[in-house]
């Protein structure tokens, strides 16, 4: 899952996938604007067949937190 997220991140910002870690923060470290982030969540929904609840994403700041949230969604859904 982490690898797929890294691949999607590279569609939004010019970073090397190998430089992205679980601790990378989307806005501060990777340079996402807030709409980049929202749009990427839409990509992840399609990729992993889950439905993201917009009220639950306020706590997702890092790549690792995104992986954790998506994993929990997959379990729940």
């Amino acid at each position, binding site marked *: 899952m982490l690898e797929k997220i890294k691949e999607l991140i590279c569609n939004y910002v010019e970073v090397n996938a190998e430089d992205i870690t679980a601790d990378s923060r989307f806005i501060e*470290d990777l340079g996402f604007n807030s709409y980049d982030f929202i749009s990427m969540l*839409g990509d992840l929904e399609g990729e992993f067949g889950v439905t993201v609840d917009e009220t639950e994403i306020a706590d997702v700041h890092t790549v690792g937190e995104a992986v954790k949230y998506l994993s929990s969604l997959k379990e729940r859904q």
Partner: protein
Amino acid sequence: MNKNEIISVADLVKKSAQKFGGKTFLKELVKGEVSEKTFGEFYTDVRKIYGYIKDKYGGEKQVHTAVIGPSSYGWLVSWFGTVCGGSTAVPLDAQLSCEDICELLVRSDTDIFCYDPRYEKMIPAVKANCPNVKEYISFAELSELLEKNVPTDFPDVPADRLAAIVYTSGTTGKSKGVMLLNSNYIDNAMCQDNESTPDDTVLSVLPIHHIYCFTCDILLSLRYGSTLCFNDSMMHIPQNLKRFAPTIMLIVPMIAETMYKQIKAAAAARPEVPVAMIAQSVFGGRLKTIYSGGAYLRPELQKAYIEMGFNMAQGYGMTECSPRISTADPADKECAGDVGVIVNGCTVKTVDGEILVKSPSVMAGYYKDETETAEALTPDGWLRTGDLGYVDEKNRVFITGRKKNLIILSNGENVSPEELENKFAEYDVVGDVLVYSEDSVITAEFFPAAEAAKNLSEAEIEEKLLEAVDRVNKTVTSAKAIRRVLIRDSEFEKTTSKKIKRRQSVQGRRIR
């Protein structure tokens, strides 16, 4: 549609049904499936809501109906059912906290609160804090309500009847309730011509409570008979572009930036395919015109879209002017950094550099706030926009900054912080920048771009920022030069419309 026959919002809804009756007005996703309503069905349902309100509250009483939620048919019929009956709607920002919702319900004297089902859990707290709200209607109950009520013909709604109280979000201060009359909405929706056709499809992605979305997506679709498609979530714009294949789209610059990145990424993956073809595919295959508003659009970005084959136009307006003051001519490819040509019926002048506007679209004032109203409107009816700028010989408007952000120097000279901030757009090292005066010293506080943070050392970033400041300083008089420079580690606090809040505590570390 004959402009002389349209006096009120009710007239617009009625005429749209007469002219485009069986044609699809709205498409939206309901439980994953596309649901459609024709102009005729919409007219019928709006009359049913009006009938319900009339029966319950009496035909003569003007009620205030607050409406909250993402774009939906329920939102639309609640707003129009109220306004077409001569009452007043209070559209609220879907991102407001429970506390803010309560405050605005009280301040707006709301009688009926119509809400998307996702606010259900807030309702007990709202009821406890808003004793004057008489009725709560969830959009989930609307289909039952529509089944039980018969359509009631609209009364003759006078042009000067208060249609809505729209609360501004603003980057400074308390939100103000902009009073818009039926005549304001109608003037703004009818002031231009030939903007779209019944063959057009509009994908509406901006928040529905926002006046730019409301007038330009919804009222213009009713006027021109275009099909309006609601984007169900900001997460799903790419999917909905493919699903609805719009020809027209209104966006804010941030969306334009992201979509451009996606096009570039797709183009890099398939270098053999022309970029224009990839761009068209990303935007659903039929898109012709993109209108950008709400914030500053970089002329380079505008140019990039034009080169990809789109009409990319920027407009300018404010809630207080319903909102359009100037609108871009999509055929104008010059990208001169202007925000469009003044719309018909609107007069613009500048006083001490500030743009003042007079037009039938200008609000009646702020609800229950005579002090703010007197500050915004001159006795002879000019709206002080608070924006600094000028109009060129082609009637194009150029914005240089906000008056209230002006820094007054000790020598009496004025500096617009936005003018300085915009000069940093070309420097890759700069993510966000805020310019302000601290202890009478012009100060620039930077949040570095993530690319820079990733690839450069702290010392290199500081060096590059200071270099950028030196270069910008060379373009202004020495009195206007930035003398103090701060760098911060966390993003600036922003408004719900993603503008930097200007009044926030200084968090940066001083590097000069």
